[in-house]
């Protein structure tokens, strides 16, 4: 047996971020692997302590650049819970609508790049075509494609417009998803590369705090949306699998996109019928002071449970902000999934976890 150490990353086209994997290999076999993170550390939690509540708001989109709405939602929700700020029903529906479109966009990007990592180039163009439509809508409404800064304390910055664009997305997406499934799900190469690979058992998912689609593929129906008041009157199913291998994680994400389309359609219906209510509560954002206390707000982001813990000491700046993100724990589990597999499987397993590095390092 001959051991050789291979450094994968920090710059590697398939990690879609800066992740360093120190890997010991014997031929193609992986003997050991150590993920090294921190290359994208921007001090998000430290920055919060020197900024007012409002000034920190544009930064939180950057915690996870593919799910900006989820982070702003978690932060806004924490501020609202701590400051007892009311959110009008219309704003809640707008938030749900934007979040779910964001989830579809994030999953579409994952789907395209994951297949690109596995060697299939064409799905990348198809998924980006549909994702572009969603991002165009975001750009029209919020002025930004990724870092939206659209949610504010007590609602959203402006009322929803361009609903016809959303209707169009809702109309075409199910067919497009069928098209993807037709070329991917039964594809023999994709099946051999992903089935039975990188299995996360139920115990492992619990022990290593794996959440989101990665956990639901193992059979847990843990979805925070089901407990949230924002989704009270919205009907959707929690998609689960039977065993969390790379293939089932793919199926769960496809199913989640279908459910998100349903949610978006319900939100549009509601927003079009009830046009009278307000989209935001008027508060003094600039001099916002929150009472002393501690709150943890929860949201189900595309990559698992995102927690925003906000501690206030009564001043106009947060005393402490803590981000809990799904990817942080997904990186930690990598060695256990990789050891014993072959070198080319690294990207097949890593990609299937849908890790976003800025979210890991914050």
């Amino acid at each position, binding site marked *: 047996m001959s051991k050789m150490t291979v450094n994968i990353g920090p710059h590697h086209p398939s990690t879609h971020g800066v992740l360093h994997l120190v890997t010991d290999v014997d031929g193609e076999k992986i003997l050991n692997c150590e993920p090294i993170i921190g290359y994208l*550390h921007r001090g998000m939690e430290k920055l919060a*302590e*020197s900024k007012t509540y409002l000034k920190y708001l544009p930064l939180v989109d950057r915690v996870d650049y593919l799910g900006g709405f989820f982070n702003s939602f978690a932060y806004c929700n924490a501020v609202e819970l701590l400051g007892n700020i009311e959110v009008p029903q219309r704003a809640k529906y707008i938030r749900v609508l934007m979040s779910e479109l964001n989830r579809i966009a994030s999953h579409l990007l994952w789907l395209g790049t994951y297949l690109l990592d596995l060697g299939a180039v064409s799905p990348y163009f198809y998924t980006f075509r549909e994702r572009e439509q969603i991002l165009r809508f975001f750009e029209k409404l919020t002025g930004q494609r990724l870092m939206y800064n659209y949610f504010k304390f007590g609602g959203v910055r402006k009322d929803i417009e361009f609903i016809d664009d959303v209707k169009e997305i809702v109309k075409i997406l199910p067919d497009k998803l069928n098209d993807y499934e037709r070329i991917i799900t039964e594809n023999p190469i994709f099946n051999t590369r992903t089935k039975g690979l990188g299995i996360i058992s139920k115990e492992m998912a619990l022990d*290593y705090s794996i959440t989101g689609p990665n956990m639901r593929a193992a059979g847990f129906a843990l979805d925070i949306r089901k*407990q949230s008041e924002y989704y009270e009157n919205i009907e959707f199913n929690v998609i689960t699998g039977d065993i969390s291998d790379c293939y089932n994680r793919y199926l769960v994400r496809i199913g989640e996109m279908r459910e998100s389309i349903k949610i978006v359609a319900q939100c549009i219906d509601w927003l079009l019928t009830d046009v009278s209510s307000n989209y935001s509560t008027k508060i003094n954002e600039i001099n916002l002071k929150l009472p002393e206390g501690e709150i*943890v707000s929860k949201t189900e982001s595309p990559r698992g449970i995102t927690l925003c813990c906000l*501690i206030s000491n009564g001043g106009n700046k947060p005393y*402490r902000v*803590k981000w809990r993100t799904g990817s942080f724990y997904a990186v*930690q589990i990598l060695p256990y999934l990789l050891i014993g597999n072959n070198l080319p499987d690294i990207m097949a397993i890593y990609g299937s976890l849908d890790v976003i590095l800025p979210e890991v390092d914050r």
Partner: protein
Amino acid sequence: MSLIHDLSNNFKNLNFIEKNDKIFVEDDTSVSDVLSYLKNQSGFDILLSLYATDYIEHIELNYYLYSTQKERYQIISICVKNKSASIVDIFPSAYFDECEIYDLFGVTFIGNDKLKRLLMPEDWNGFPLKKDYGNKSEAVK
């Protein structure tokens, strides 16, 4: 029966205080026993997060637990100076969390022998999230 009564009955020699929905364990050395009991007997099977806050006179460690069967959240808190017991044996997911707290707050976790700087460079001086660290890094000063 509420959780705090349950805990008080099972750990007669420990003091538990409930404050702001959190349960404080007064003796910080036995937190691993409490967490092990909560995991195996009370069904709190996921440690969603472990985070620290610097309150200058002490550092507060919060264990954010979730029970998949009861759909319930619970925070267990302890106050420490700069040392605490590691819980990696009970919740392996805490390894990265403990490294992060060691990195940013300088709390050493006894029993976690692979503790390392996780986010900051290995040769970094000081612990950025402590309140006495200031707002500028050494390099900027």
